[in-house]
């Protein structure tokens, strides 16, 4: 599931285990409660680093669990909307240390962070939907639009289902920086985290500003979210 550590003012949320960290209700609920704990425990300038064990950051929705059931897909979507909204309103900077593959909703989870650092050599970012004959929801598109600036890069990600390596992702402005190993990625995230904590920003002001920047995403998350308080 996921584990939460606090090192000084730095919270580290780790998706644990060597599996694909598929975003089924169980994992999403566990992330949700970790985020709640973070809010409760953060008293001064803090930072969140989200990372994962194993070969995957997250391979997206748990389609096997959903088994083509509309209500199950809808449930995963509703729960995932909720944690992305939670991340967008989190009163501290957020850093995704992407140490493996991030595809579909897993890619969206990474992009939901203010900074994305990623490991090179293995692992890619991949909006797999087109290859799996799935349409991409409007709120995913809104996040992609807010986080990936160039229209051609957006097209390559969603309309060509490119498997984007870390170095390519830096070039295309999708992520911030790339590192040679998982350890170096997390180390760099901690280094960046310490720098951001040192700015001593007021968390609620930071969150307000972020929510303004991503207001289109929040609008889309709330439109069509019929099962929100799950």
């Amino acid at each position, binding site marked *: 599931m996921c584990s939460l550590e606090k090192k000084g003012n730095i919270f580290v949320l780790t998706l644990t285990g060597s599996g694909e960290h598929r975003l089924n209700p169980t994992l999403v609920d566990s992330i949700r409660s970790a985020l709640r704990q973070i809010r409760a425990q953060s008293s001064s300038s803090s930072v969140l680093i989200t990372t994962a064990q194993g070969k995957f950051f997250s391979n997206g929705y748990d*389609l096997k669990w*959903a*088994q*083509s059931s509309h209500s199950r*897909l809808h449930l995963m979507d509703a729960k995932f909307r909720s944690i992305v909204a939670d991340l967008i309103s989190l009163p501290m900077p957020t850093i995704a240390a992407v140490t493996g593959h991030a595809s579909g909703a897993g890619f969206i989870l990474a992009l939901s962070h203010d900074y994305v650092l990623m490991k090179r050599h293995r692992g890619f970012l991949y909006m797999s*939907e*087109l*290859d799996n*004959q*799935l*349409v*991409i*929801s*409007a709120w995913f*598109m809104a996040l992609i639009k807010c986080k990936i*600036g*160039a*229209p*051609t890069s*957006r*097209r390559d990600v*969603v*309309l*060509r*289902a490119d498997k984007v390596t870390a170095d390519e992702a830096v070039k295309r402005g999708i992520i911030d920086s790339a590192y040679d190993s998982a350890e170096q990625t997390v180390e760099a995230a901690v280094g960046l985290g310490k720098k951001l904590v040192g700015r001593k920003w007021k968390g609620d002001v930071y969150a307000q500003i972020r929510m303004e920047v991503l207001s289109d995403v929040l609008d889309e998350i709330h439109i069509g979210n019929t099962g929100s308080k799950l």
Partner: protein
Amino acid sequence: MCTLEKRGNLFFLTLTGDDDHRLSPAVIDSLISSLSQVASQATRGSALITTAQGNRFFSNGFDLAWAQSAGSKSVAADRLNQMVVSFKPVVGALLSLPMPTIAALPGHAAAGGFLFALCHDYILMRSDRGVLYMSEVDLGLPFPDYFTVAMRSKIGSVSARRDVMLRGMKIKGEEAVRMGIVDSAHDSAESTVEAAVRLGEKLASRKWDGEVYAEIRKGLYPELCGVLGLAAKVITPNL
């Protein structure tokens, strides 16, 4: 006019004639019916390449000469408006086309011609000749709303948008690539079309579901769908 051919998986839509391929009412009608044919004949693994005959022009936009040949200023304005309005379904058809679309420009693309190119998923042009040019500011013509939305959706950089719309910049192939407007530039009309064919075949080989492709494309450009009145289609996922 325009012709439609199918070679293997690839549809070729070609603006014909030795001239600057103006988007007159007749050409617009011909485009609408050709695109409708393409949509109805689409299968998994199809792709569209739009190009033009000759070596000098993709298209110089709406047929302003026809508009101006009207008796009065007001009829001229009506004629122009008629072309502007009747071109919207062409944009809508390209936006909803159930396959990847590639514009291969053998020469200049100006005003409506530039817009027509912009409505494709990929644009390839020549590096040796031909420019992209939104002539409106130079001609004293305001942009139709869907033109502005299309440019906002497809041209990302703020300075590029200003240069295209507010400066009437004539943009050559390599500059267009640098500005992120065009995907690649090639040293002749033939090599541009050849590259388009290679890209078309690569995209076609992914064998994407055309309906899903079209819905994802529409999701990428919600503002353009809005101004054209295009609704999203609900597709039941086949897991």
